[in-house]
Every structure is written in C-alpha cells, then in structure tokens.
C-alpha cells in the first residue's frame, strides 16, 4: 500500500533505517532501526507486564524525557525517539527496582572497556551492534 516516500518533510529519521542489522520488512520498513531499540522497547513492556511499573508510569517518564530533548534546541535531525525511551526506562528502573542508576553506569563502562571479540557469557540471538 502506501509508503513513507511521500512523507519527505517529516521522515527525517530515514537515515536510521540503514541500521546495520535490523531485518527488513516486506513493505521495506523497519519496526526498529537498530537491535537495541527492540530490546529497550521489550524491556519496558515486559517490566510493565510484570508489574514493576505501569505503562502509564512509563508514559509519564517518556513525556518528560522527550520534553527535555525538545528543549535542547538541537537540529531536529538529531531527534531519536528510542534514546528518549531508554532514558525514561533507566529512570523508572532506578526508581522502582533494586537496580541503581550507578549500577547501569558501571555496567555500561565495563562493556565499553571490553576487548573486541569478547564473550559476555549469556546466550541469546540478538546483535549488540558492536
């Protein structure tokens, strides 16, 4: 049916569709432009399913994160919805689970310092994009 090619003025995220490993869809469109977006999406929905917080709680955090981003006065091309999504998720996890913001920072630093070709010891089939 219709496609996003007619949406020139608003489809500023098109470049992200060239994400390295995301699977193409039959209509040429991607649900997630990089694997981490799908993981971040799934983590939020899964935690809400299990009652760590509600989707309404999440939505309220997301609105705050997007408003902060909008207030940055950056070129619109830099807007990235799932970056805001991840910020909201990190804040809710820090507020509602035993995991602190510093835990996330520390683990991220550890992963950043990994040598190439590391084995990170858990078995799953998604690509981390590095």
């Amino acid at each position: 049916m219709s496609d996003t090619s007619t949406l020139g003025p608003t489809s500023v995220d098109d470049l992200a569709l060239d994400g390295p490993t995301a699977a193409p869809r039959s209509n040429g469109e991607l649900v997630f432009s990089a694997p981490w977006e799908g993981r971040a999406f799934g983590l939020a929905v899964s935690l809400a399913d299990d009652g760590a917080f509600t989707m309404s709680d999440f939505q309220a955090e997301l609105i705050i994160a997007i408003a902060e981003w909008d207030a940055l006065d950056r070129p619109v091309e830099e807007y990235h919805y799932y970056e805001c999504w991840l910020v909201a998720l990190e804040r809710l996890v820090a507020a509602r689970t035993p995991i602190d913001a510093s835990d996330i920072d520390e683990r991220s630093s550890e992963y950043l310092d990994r040598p190439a070709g590391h084995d990170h010891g858990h078995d799953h089939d998604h690509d981390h994009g590095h």
Partner: protein
Amino acid sequence: MTASPLRADRAPAAIRTEALEALLTEKGLVNAGGLDGLIKRFVNDVGPMNGAKVVAKAWTDPEFYERLLADGTAAVGEFGFSGPQGEHIVVVENSDTMHNVVVCTLCSCYPWPLLGLPPDWYKDPAYRSRVVREPRKLLGEMGLDLDESIDITVWDSSAENRYFILPQRPAGTDGLSEDELAALVSREAMVGVAQVRAPA
C-alpha cells in the same frame, strides 16, 4: 539524574541497553526468553493489518459499526486485539465534510494492537508540532490534498484517549469482500494522513 539525555558522556544506547538487560536478567526481573518472544511478536505479528480488518468490518457490518463508534476498545476486543496501548481506543469517522487526523503531541501514543508500533514520521517532532499548527499544509506535503470545503480536526492522543480513524469507504468498492476491502486500508489512512482509494 545520571540518565539525562543532556549528558554528553553517556555510553552509547546499545551499550546501556545491553547493561540494563543484563542487570534486570540477573535480578530475575526480566526473562530473556519471554523478552525475545515479546519483541518478535511486535516485529512480526502486530501491525496495521489488524486495524484494516476492523475498518473493513465496520464498512460491511452496520451493527459492528455502531459498536465500534460507541466503544472502540470493546469492539476491537471482539477481534482479540488488546494489550498494551490497546486501552481507551476512541474511533472517529471521516465524512464528506470532516477529515480527522491523529497525533500525539507529547510523546507517541498510538493504538499498538491495531496499528503496531508507530512509524518514524509519527514520532517526529516536525509532525507532532506542524500537524497541530498547519494540518492542511502538512497533509498536502504528505500527499493528501483536501478540498477547502472539508474541515480538518486534529486529535491529540494520550494515555486516556487513543484515537483511531475510520476512513471513508471509497466509491466503486461495492463488490469487494471484507478481506479485499481490508487490503485497501493503509496505516496512513487509519492515522488520517491519507485516504483509502478504490483499486485501479
């Protein structure tokens, strides 16, 4: 707040997401297998074909049409379409004199069970602001030129109301089955940035 988007020294999102998933899994707060299944479902199974079925049913079944306008969430529930962001669905109907279009100005509220996850243009700051300020011009740029005689209503979705557009059934489709009709209905038409056209 350490997780501010204002912070330039944040690790890349892919790394932070991986760290978050590992921590949540270690604490038993997330099950990796369940997570994989959930993501695959949204990538492969939930999409605008669901909403298109609802539209085609409303076009061909007057009683369903009444139920859909009266209580969108309950009516789409008859198809089994429910789940996160499937609550509080409000159906608004296009007519010869009124065209409706949906936005979420604050984030990207969207009826996931009916349309899947929102496309990039729907989440874009330009769409979120311009469709409110200059809907006719923006719709024109998106390929939908509406006659000046048609009024436009912009509906701002939120957690309380997730709007879903019932497009007009195009002329010349009387002989089509429900399935054939559903195949004509695009996601864009159900958000209100396009109309449904009869097959050429």
